[in-house]
């Protein structure tokens, strides 16, 4: 199981995304998750493309499944997907849909797309690992700031915060797309989580936040990126 890998070249990730989108440049919306994903896969997650089902792997759950090009690009850069498959993206019969599907894509932990499902699934995964006595893997779930409007997340946040779920991390990619917007870090803090708000484009800061000690509580990292174009 690899824990430290050579950093991925951002230009390489954009090249891989272009194999899907056909665009040379990508909008902030298309890349809102890109830096978080790169830091997670380069520096944080212990996952191995040769053993994608290893019971002691870290679990990364992409709850915000819409616009998964950045995710597929990172998975390809790390050897979970062959880059030749990226060109099939969103075509009939492709494994690479407009939403990721765990049944089809190696390394993908959940099928997502409908908002508000990843965090409850992540809470169950974190709890399940603990029940099975697997104390080393961590569970990281990525949600969007607007996605947090879904009430299912609030059920999960309240429960996890009171259950000492130190193996759980939620990354909120905040591109200011929520209607009736509140304080995102506070949402977690009041429920007993540790929470930190950081620049979602700064890799070193993201790494520090994602690896911060949170020995007795779940961790929320609010990664702020450019506001979504209206």
């Amino acid at each position, binding site marked *: 199981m690899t824990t430290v890998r050579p950093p991925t070249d951002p230009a390489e990730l954009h090249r891989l995304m272009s194999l899907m989108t056909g665009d040379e440049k990508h909008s902030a919306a298309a890349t809102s998750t890109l830096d978080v994903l790169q830091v997670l896969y380069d520096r944080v997650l212990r996952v191995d493309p040769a053993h994608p089902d290893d019971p002691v792997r870290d679990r990364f759950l992409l709850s915000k499944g819409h616009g998964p090009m950045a995710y597929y690009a990172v998975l390809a850069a790390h050897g979970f997907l062959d880059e030749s498959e990226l060109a099939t993206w969103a075509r009939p019969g492709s494994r690479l849909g407009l939403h990721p599907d765990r049944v089809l894509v190696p390394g993908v932990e959940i099928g997502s797309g409908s908002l*508000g499902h990843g965090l409850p*699934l992540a809470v169950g995964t974190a709890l399940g690992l603990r*029940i099975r006595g697997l104390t080393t893997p961590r569970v990281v779930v990525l949600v969007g700031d607007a996605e947090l409007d879904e009430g299912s997340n609030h059920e999960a946040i309240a429960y996890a915060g009171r259950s000492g779920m130190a193996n759980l991390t939620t990354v909120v990619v905040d591109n200011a797309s929520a209607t009736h917007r509140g304080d995102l870090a506070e949402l977690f803090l009041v429920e007993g989580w540790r929470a930190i708000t950081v620049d979602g484009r700064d890799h070193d800061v993201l790494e520090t936040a994602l690896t911060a000690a949170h020995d007795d509580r779940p961790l929320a990292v609010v990664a702020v990126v450019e506001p979504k174009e209206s």
Partner: protein
Amino acid sequence: MTTAIAATTMREAFLHAAADAVDADDRAVLVLADISAGADPVPALARRRPGRVVNVGIREQLLLGLAGGLALTGLRPVVHSYAPFLVERPYEALKLDLGHQDVGAVLVSIGASYDQPGIGRTHEAPEDVAVVDTLPGWTIHVPGHPEEADRLVRESIAGEGLVYVRLSSASNAAPHHGAGLQTIRVGSPDDVVVAVGPTLDRVLAADRFRGATVLYTSTVRPFDAAGLRAAVGEVPTVTMVEPYLEGTSARVVDEALSDRPHRTVMIGHPREESHRYGGHDLTL
């Protein structure tokens, strides 16, 4: 340890069977949303098997989402609440957090259609079997006796896949433990009644079915189509008596008999927005 107790209700039978499974099977985890959390033998089980009884509070979306996550780690969640809160409120979680993730779970409901008619529509779920039946891959058990509930719960936890067990406070006098459609009374092959779960004793007593062949099942999905075809004549009338929404099994009965002319009669609870408190007996 096996809890030696003569269960008097399906709910008691379920809770003791689930407790035995949690004691003996390292895959089994009982997942609750307050309902039954204080009922015997759950508190003692929670003390005996720390972490294996999970009570999320009154959070039924999380109830199912968390169960999906447990299943993703290889565990076998046994998820329980009143039927409306187990399969209606979190319906999308059944679809996505279980089915679409390709993981299994055992869902066990109480309340049935009108078990507590005094508390009204909010706790009644005559639609529950029809709702679950819209989703692919589910096994649906409707036990007719506490001993059947005990067996079906144990088998479901030990097995794989997606299972919905619908418990009721209504019961037949005796259990019938066979698989699929069981022949209870041989009568005309052209007048065949299928009694589901706790409707059996009332079907056997009903004048209108005096000359009929009576079949019984506690498993409505997958439906025993071959068993029905083997039991009926060439131009049968098949009456389905189900203790939930009338016509829930019309599709599967019709498919089972697509090889012959047939007439179907569907008996169940009517499709209505009930504001009645009490008095919901099936009319046979």
